[in-house]
């Protein structure tokens, strides 16, 4: 059991840290969340349903913890001011220009409601399928797709606002609903 647990969850830890950081921004808070998540994974490993996808199950736990944490923070009025954000939380970008762009992106991401942010992160960065995200979040696939579309649209608008003309060579193509 333990070797199974190890071989299936170990490869997910890096992705969990990345997802948690994307959701919470703060490095320590994100690692706290991942630790909490892993403890739950270890203690409930035997209670998984047969055939349940490990990645989707683990992400569901991480997501629920992130939502709880964000709600608590909102209730307590905890707010990470943009100036306070540890720049190194998103460091290691190859160049200064990239770093600025990445910081702007994270700022833009911060303006999204958490349900849109989590779907965007799971799909765009973690490569979960729409079906996996739907199961992890406990919502219908249609909801995942509409959150994704609304979230990306909003993110693009926020990015265009942040970046202005400078970073987008031939004017930012703005996404519009096609129907």
């Amino acid at each position: 059991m333990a070797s199974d647990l190890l071989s299936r969850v170990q490869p997910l830890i890096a992705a969990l840290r990345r997802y948690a950081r994307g959701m919470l921004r703060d490095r320590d808070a994100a690692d706290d969340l991942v630790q909490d998540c892993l403890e739950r994974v270890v203690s409930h490993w035997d209670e998984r349903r047969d055939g349940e996808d490990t990645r989707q199950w683990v992400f569901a736990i991480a997501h629920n913890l992130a939502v709880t944490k964000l709600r608590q923070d909102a209730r307590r009025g905890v707010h990470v001011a943009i100036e306070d954000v540890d720049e190194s939380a998103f460091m290691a970008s190859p160049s200064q220009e990239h770093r600025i762009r990445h910081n702007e992106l994270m700022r833009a991401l911060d303006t999204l409601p958490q349900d849109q942010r989590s779907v965007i992160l799971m799909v765009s960065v973690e490569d979960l399928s729409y079906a996996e995200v739907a199961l992890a979040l406990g919502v219908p696939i249609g909801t995942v797709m509409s959150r994704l579309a609304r979230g990306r649209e909003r993110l693009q608008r926020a990015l265009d606002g942040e970046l202005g003309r400078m970073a987008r060579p031939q004017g930012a193509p703005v996404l519009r609903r096609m129907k």
Partner: protein
Amino acid sequence: MSTMSSNTPVPIDEADLHAYVDNALDAARRKEVQDYIDRNPQAAQAVAALSGQRQLLRSALSSIADEPIPQRLSLSNLIRERRQQRRWPWQMAAAVFLSLGIGAIGGLSLRDRTAPAGGISALAGEARASYAVYATDNLHPVEMGPQQRAELLSWVSSKLNQPVTVPDLTPSGYRFSGGRVVATEHGPAAMFLYEAADGTRLAVVMRRMAHETDTPMLQHSDGHVGGYAWAVRGLGFSLVGTGRPEALHPLADEVRRQVQPTPSTGANPRSRAMQRVALLE
């Protein structure tokens, strides 16, 4: 945006463009969407924007996955900790006690933040603190040595308001080297010190318990000093040392066996529990 060719069977909408960028389309649909994008510059622009955003997100966050994973997120450590927590059958016994509403068992884990003040978790901390101060003291670790055993016992018994004996750990290789009364936030405690031939020291600390008066044995540690703590009928015990938990556990078992209330002071705990169960039924 309505320049859709008449031979496209299912109209292509925004969701298809997202799915195209996310590689979520089957081959046939992907081909249809590809054709549509090729014919429709606005759709092509939208796809380029979506895919650029996706790439930007990935590159902004990718470095996080390359960072070394901190020690506290080591899965094998977490699994090992979990196994140690699960090893003890007393957890099952405690669960039965809890479900029957017997005993004031406050929690099964020492990390339980809801444990009452002065309970077993506090005792464990006090025992570690006493160990850290006295067991490391080479000049004056004890107030009274083994020659003054009778005097020591009468002193600590009067402080604890309860007759106390010195557990004998000689067969396990630890010689009794004396003891003292120590102060805790929850009243006086007795500390007995033991020493092995190699100089390794152990302490057994006991005090009266206002909470968690009957508690199964729990492992505790602050990383350097650790051991086991439990309580029997209002008297709490903790064995602490610097050894590995596997080495300390049999010693704690031995102490517990020796300090078990004798039948002359009342029925043994199991039959008392049985009597209480009978009353509940």
